[in-house]
Every structure is written in structure tokens, then in C-alpha cells.
């Protein structure tokens, strides 16, 4: 999933303090699971903003809505009536949802309510970890299912580097060395011969280096 975390309340207040009416819009997908922008977090932010405006003696209206998905026009258009009745929208969706919201409602200022962090998963309740950087040409088959692009600080493709020590990366003793994990896993799979195969230079044109990307699937396109 896409992992996000809420922006500091002070930053949000600064951005919306002069507004007369605000719609706080959540998303039922990734940001709900990572507890950053689902209906629960929408309720908390909206309540905090209402208290702020009351304390300031302002009559600003703060509404709440949570869409099934903000990265999908199909759901955005269903929220048109609500969105149009407010002066501004705080999107609690990831950067994708926030941008789709802004594109759909071109005349409506849209303010992000979260900082979008990465693609990852939960290690335990309240702890999320990065797993994928969307490089566009997946290497996982060669590296025992552990991604050196997302999980190695230097994106080393034939590691480890000289900084690996006791299984930890040189950037922090709290970060596992991805290549140590890869070696451990290849050993467990009895595939250490694969480790001896040099991974050739990666074609980064499918990554961000090639500019903004698009996927077109002609067989389903209408």
C-alpha cells in the first residue's frame, strides 16, 4: 500500500486559517489502512479544526467526507455536490488522490492533509516499512524476493558494499543491510549460485529517470 503520515496540525491550520468553509476529505483505501487519512483521521482533524475556529471566534464551517478512492474519477464525481459547497478541500488521501481531487475540481483549492511517504507494509500496528520504489523493471526474482532498490541505501545491485556490518547498514544500526538479507535468503533457498551471477547495469529509463510514467494496457483500454 501507499504509506502516508498526517501533516502537523500547525501546518494545516496555517494553510487554512483564512478560509470560510473547509471540507476534510478522506480515502477508504491505503491511507485508511496506514491510519493517516481514513474516516477516523478525518473526524479527528475536522474536530480539531472546528475547535480551532471556535477558539478564534470564527464561523468557519468544517465538513467531513470519506471517498471509496480519491485516485479514481468514478468516486470523485460522486462527491461533487459536497466539494462544490465548500471553499477549500483538505485531501487526506495520498499525493495521487490529492492531485486527482485537484484535477477534478479545477476551481477548488486543495490542500494535502498528509505527507505521502512510500510503498510499503505494516511490520506491526503503528510501524510501516518501505518495500518498493516502483522502478518499473522488477529484480525480485534474482534477489530472493528482497529489493535492493528500495531497501539498500545505495541501491547497490551487486552487494553488499563495504559498509555492511553484523547484518546492519552503515547508515544506521537500526537498518538491516538489504544485501545481508538477500544473502541469508538465497542461502536458505539453496540458491547461492545465483548470488555469483553479476546483475548487469540496470536500465533506469523505466524508473523516474525517464520522466513521468504512464501505463497503457491496450487490451482493456476503451
Amino acid at each position: 500500500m501507499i504509506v502516508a503520515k498526517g501533516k502537523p496540525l500547525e501546518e494545516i491550520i496555517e494553510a487554512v486559517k483564512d478560509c470560510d468553509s473547509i471540507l476534510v476529505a478522506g480515502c477508504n483505501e491505503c491511507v485508511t489502512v496506514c491510519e493517516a487519512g481514513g474516516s477516523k483521521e478525518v473526524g479527528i482533524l475536522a474536530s480539531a479544526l472546528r475547535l480551532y475556529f471556535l477558539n478564534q471566534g470564527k464561523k468557519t464551517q468544517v465538513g467531513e467526507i470519506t471517498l471509496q478512492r480519491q485516485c479514481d474519477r468514478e468516486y470523485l464525481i460522486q462527491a461533487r455536490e459536497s466539494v462544490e459547497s465548500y471553499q477549500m478541500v483538505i485531501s487526506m488521501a495520498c499525493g495521487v488522490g490529492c492531485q486527482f481531487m485537484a484535477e477534478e475540481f479545477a476551481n477548488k483549492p486543495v490542500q494535502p492533509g498528509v505527507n505521502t511517504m512510500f510503498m510499503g507494509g505494516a511490520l506491526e500496528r503503528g510501524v510501516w516499512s518501505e518495500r518498493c520504489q516502483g522502478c518499473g523493471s522488477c529484480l525480485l526474482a534474482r534477489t530472493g524476493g528482497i529489493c535492493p532498490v528500495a531497501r539498500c541505501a545505495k541501491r547497490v545491485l551487486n552487494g553488499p558494499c563495504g559498509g555492511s556490518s553484523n547484518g546492519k547498514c552503515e547508515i544506521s544500526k537500526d537498518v538491516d543491510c538489504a544485501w545481508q538479507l538477500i544473502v541469508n535468503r538465497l542461502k536458505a533457498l539453496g540458491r547461492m549460485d545465483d548470488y555469483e551471477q553479476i546483475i548487469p547495469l540496470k536500465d533506469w529509463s523505466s524508473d523516474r529517470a525517464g520522466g513521468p510514467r504512464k501505463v497503457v494496457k491496450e487490451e482493456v483500454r476503451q
Partner: protein
Amino acid sequence: MRLNYPAHVRVVRVPCTGKVDLIHILRAFEKGADGVYLVGCMEGSCFYEQGNFRARKRVEHAQRLLEAVGTGGQRVQMYNLSSGEAPLFAQYAREMSERIMALGPNPAKLAMDVRQGKAA
């Protein structure tokens, strides 16, 4: 024991303080409460193990948010006691009550009163 505690303290019973979420605390202020405090079991003796620790974290989060919106973080507090400590329950009620008296009413309530023409 027939102990007294300030009459304006309104008790809301919950199965465990771990049931109390951030939104419940914030809504209480939106509805005009001047202060909110949670009284949980002693740390380490929660029937659900983590309930009162979770409650404490939520109280701390609520304090930060209420500070940021200008309500004031001191209006929320977490207390712990065992079910046999009624005098302590009454003491906490007095302590919180005195603190809120010193802070004055919830500013959001005053603003709502002005809006509804109820201001003194």
C-alpha cells in the same frame, strides 16, 4: 464510604479506558466540556493488558492537539488508581476540578454561547 467529589464532574462509564479514543475526547470539547480526564486501572493491571497504556498515549496526543488549537493541553489528564481507592478517585476529581476552575471555561463553549445569544 459516601465520599464527596465536585458535583459538576460527569462520569461516563466505559468498559476500559482503552475504549476511549481521541475523537471522543475532542468531541467532548466540541460539545462544551471544560476538561476531560480519564481514570484507568493501575498500569500493569489492565484486564486487557494494554488498555490504560493506550489511553495514556491518546491523552498525550489529545493534549498536543488541544494545545495547537488553542483550547489548552492542561484540560486533559490521565489518572490511574485501583478499584479499591475511592478516596483517590475523589481526590483526582477535586484536583482536576480545581485546575479547570483556574483555567476558566472552554473557549470554544464561550464562542458557541455568544453565537447562540447565551452569553452572560
